[in-house]
């Protein structure tokens, strides 16, 4: 019976992943998947509307699901459905609670009372869990409708907060700027495909098309002082102003270049295209398609809606077929959420591996190993997909470095576990895999994670060598630290650390530190060579360079102390845990200084998280420094 546990776990894990990767059965007659696949050009990249929807939701409210805390079912089937409402029926969209407000001061400012925020569960079971704290008892996400009356005051506060440097802003000011930014972006989204103020955009466009020749003539005549139809000229000018506003309010380029335009990147906003209509005399067919979608959506005609999507998609595909292969794949990738799926598997693997130390060591350790392998496979597919979408090596920004460091460190764990088969590798894999993906999730809250590279970093060769190798060095240094944590916790708090396990852990940590030294050194050197090749200087004492150098020096220090016999296993563990502090500072702390070439991406919340992490590592080191006879595993009596 016990023999089959690993196999069963393997099959269950695999089924879970397959279920994630298979397309979901749509619940609605509207083709939201097809709508989400339509491409727009934003921040220099042709991306599916689905990605815009997901990254906007993450930015607004820290998650992709749209729904209220009191209801268990989500309010929209998918981010794409929410986006459809934002584009075509903004009154409905305004009722969705998608703006996250945590700061109590900001809640007050936005006129939200404690009573508004309180969640009233209908089922008594839920009420019970809410009292226990397992379910939220107050909500933190609110609809546009709820807060719209206070937006002028928010705007005033944002104006006051903006001149303050980011580093010295109060939490309230941060919250104000964050929410205001979200609302501005919400306005941009609303003006992407159709004006939110128009009840019948299609009708408006059809009459605009008819009015164009005479209307433009009337305006021309007016400006030269000749007799003209004053009514008509006024109406034309008003339309012009309306479309000018539309073109200025959004930065999402939704209209593909017309056939006669050869530049593939000459996408336009809907407003810009409409302004161009005054010269061309016709409305761009893409804009008419958007208006058609808007009409079909508002009239609740799913067949019409789906048909327009197919036609429009085929039309755009004639010219951008290759790019649309990527947008389609990206939508599938978004829906599969390989990294979130891996997180679940890592947690399960971690628990199984821990239990294997208490009972059924062999089958549970093997099950955990299988789950780690599955999760690692899923992240591999995820990272590979990102690389293909972007046409870049794996690490291009802080988000992808988190993915890659987790991937590298779990990869090393798999090797360790294959050699030692004592579940230590799986525990470390579960821990580091989950932690790095959690970090990645928090980094994804600042927007689309497939960003365009700044010119200075635009070199695939160096990204593929320097960045990948130095990230591997980070991963290994972290892994050594996490293995050391297992040693300390098992040794000092439990009786489970026998001599053989302790020895093999010491050997693992030592081996990984050697590996880390090699990779962080070579990676740092390659960075120097990149700098010399590009800028004529090998070393510039830039914060990120210094961070990498400190990791190399720290690893060298551990090795010298070990070789010199100054430390034994316990000292090695304490120093390896300090390596976690060194690496986390180098990874994030240097970016928080806000100076230097590498100062991309800074988050204020990250500072708190980093401080807590460092404090926890110091406590673990203190635990390591207690005399051995206080350790439960080494007590003879």
């Amino acid at each position, binding site marked *: 019976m016990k023999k089959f546990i690993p196999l069963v776990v393997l099959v269950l894990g695999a089924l879970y992943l397959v279920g994630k990767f298979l397309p979901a059965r749509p619940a609605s007659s509207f083709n939201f998947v097809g709508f989400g696949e339509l491409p727009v050009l934003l921040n220099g990249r042709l991306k599916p509307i689905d990605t815009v929807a997901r990254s906007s939701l993450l930015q607004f409210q820290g998650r992709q699901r749209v729904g209220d805390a009191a209801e268990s079912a989500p309010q929209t089937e998918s981010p794409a459905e929410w986006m459809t409402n934002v584009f075509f029926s903004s009154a409905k969209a305004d009722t969705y609670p998608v703006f996250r407000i945590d700061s109590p001061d900001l809640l007050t400012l936005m006129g939200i009372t404690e009573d508004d925020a309180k969640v009233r569960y209908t089922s008594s079971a839920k009420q019970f869990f809410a009292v226990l704290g397992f379910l939220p008892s107050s909500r933190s996400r609110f609809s546009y409708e709820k807060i719209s009356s206070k937006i002028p005051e928010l705007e005033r506060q944002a104006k006051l907060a903006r001149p303050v440097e980011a580093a010295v802003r109060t939490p309230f000011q941060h919250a104000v700027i964050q929410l205001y930014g979200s609302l501005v972006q919400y306005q941009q989204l609303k003006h992407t495909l159709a004006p939110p103020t128009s009840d019948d955009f299609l009708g408006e466009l059809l009459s605009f098309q008819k009015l164009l020749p005479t209307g433009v003539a009337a305006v021309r005549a007016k400006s030269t002082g000749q007799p003209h139809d004053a009514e008509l000229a006024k109406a034309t000018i008003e339309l012009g102003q309306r479309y000018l506003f539309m073109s200025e309010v959004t930065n999402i380029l939704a209209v593909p270049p017309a056939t006669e335009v050869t530049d593939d990147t000459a*996408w336009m906003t809907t407003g810009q295209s409409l302004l161009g209509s005054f010269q061309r005399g016709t409305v761009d067919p893409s804009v008419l398609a958007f208006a058609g979608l808007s009409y079909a959506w508002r009239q609740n005609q799913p067949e019409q809606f789906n048909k327009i999507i197919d036609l429009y998609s085929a039309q755009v595909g004639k010219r951008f077929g290759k790019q649309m292969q990527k947008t389609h794949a990206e939508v599938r990738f978004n829906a599969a959420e390989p990294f979130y799926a891996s997180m679940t598997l890592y947690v399960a693997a971690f628990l199984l591996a821990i239990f294997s130390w208490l009972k059924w060591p062999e089958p549970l350790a093997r099950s955990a190993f299988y789950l780690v392998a599955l999760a690692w496979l899923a992240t591999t597919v995820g990272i590979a997909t990102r690389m293909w979408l972007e046409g870049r090596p794996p690490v291009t920004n802080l988000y992808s470095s988190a993915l890659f460091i987790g991937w590298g460190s779990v990869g090393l764990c798999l090797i360790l576990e294959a050699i030692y088969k004592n579940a230590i590798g799986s525990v470390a894999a579960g821990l580091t895999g989950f932690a790095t993906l959690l970090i990645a999730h928090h980094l994804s809250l600042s927007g689309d994670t497939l960003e365009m590279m*700044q010119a200075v970093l635009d070199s695939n060769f160096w990204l593929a060598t320097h960045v990948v190798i130095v990230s591997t060095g980070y991963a290994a240094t972290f892994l050594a630290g996490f293995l050391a944590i297992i040693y300390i916790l098992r040794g000092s708090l439990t009786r489970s650390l026998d001599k053989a396990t302790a020895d093999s852990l010491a050997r693992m940590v030592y081996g990984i530190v050697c590996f880390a030294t090699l990779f962080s*050194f070579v990676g740092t050197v390659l960075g120097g060579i*990149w700098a010399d090749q590009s800028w004529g200087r090998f070393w510039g004492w830039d914060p990120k360079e210094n961070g990498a150098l400190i990791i190399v020096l720290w690893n060298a*220090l551990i090795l010298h102390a070990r070789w010199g016999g100054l430390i034994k296993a316990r000292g090695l563990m304490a120093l390896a845990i300090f390596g976690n502090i060194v690496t986390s500072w180098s990874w994030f702390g240097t970016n928080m200084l806000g100076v230097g070439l590498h100062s991309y991406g800074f988050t204020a919340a990250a500072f708190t998280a980093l401080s807590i992490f460092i404090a926890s590592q110091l406590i673990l080191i203190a635990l390591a420094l207690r005399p051995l006879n206080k350790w439960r595993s080494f007590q003879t009596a």
Partner: protein
Amino acid sequence: MNEVTRQFRDFFVSLKLTIVLLALSIILIFAATVDQVNLGIWAVQQKYFHSLFVLWRVGDIPVPVFPGGYLIGGFLLINLISAQVYRFKLSAKKSGIWLTHVGLIILLIGELLTGLWQEEFALRLDEGQSKNYSESYRFNELAVTETTDAAFDDVVVIPEKILARGEAIQHAKLPFRIVPKLYYPNATIPENDSKAPTPSHATKGIGLQVGVVPLPLTYKQDERNLPAAYVELVGADGLIGTWLVYANPGMPPQRFEYAGRSWKIALRYERNYKPFSLTLLKFSNDRYAGTAIPKNYSSRIRLNTPEGRDDREVLIYMNNPLRYAGLTFYQASFDGPKTTILQVVRNPSWQMPYIACTLMTLGLLIQFGIHLVAFIARRRKIAAVAA
């Protein structure tokens, strides 16, 4: 060897010293990195790395609080060399450590030489403009130029450092003395809201219309200090006048006549002349569609030497600098659509890190390779015993 020498030797050979020095260097680098927020990258290098001690000012007295880069690096060098001489016998088993340490010695010496020799300048070119000099990022100079002969200029330059001393300056080529009256290491021309002009001490030139006010020194990476000074020119027969000079590039040189000869005077960025000139033919700045994110900048440049030995076009762009005459020109920045800013670096010891790092990488690979082989052999043995 007597006891004292032996103890001395043992101290420098010891592994404990290595560990202490590694720990000290980590602390030094950490402190220097954090201090960049206050001091900027250049001042930090001077204070922490290119120094024997890190000094703190207590009142007016600088107190050494921590060993600086030169001291730690120097001790590390001695430690390494003496360990190499006394502790390690060259053998196949130790070859990895040997290579790593020799590489590190070269790296440390290379870094010392870079600190001593490396120079950085900026070269700013508008489209169509030619220059045969680049300008310092930090230093300024007072230039007094005789323009009497239309065929050539005769320039006397006085480094800012000397100007700052405030002592009268006499130069053999000048028929007058230069007496710095007031010197501000950083200054600005205030915006005139009240229509009341800022008081000026000048009696000639632009200083009659504008005045300057001192500013606190800036350490920000994207700002530079712009010094200003009021200088008196005193001829054989008395005061010629007082000029306001200001290192802002927007301030043109001020012309005057004295002793029947024509002159101009200006405080400007310190120049470094080259035996060749560069002309910007075209600057391009591509952005990603629909964004302000720069995709690539490039400068098409004509490089020529006066005797005509070199006369060719080069393209400088991101990650692709021009190396010429011991200098590296790289695309650092730009100013508007038609102005490029190149960084010019001279670093004669640039090959040393390459040699050092190759040796060290090789050494680490051998060393850890030996460990790995031994580890696998031991696992095999255990497996064989178990079976």
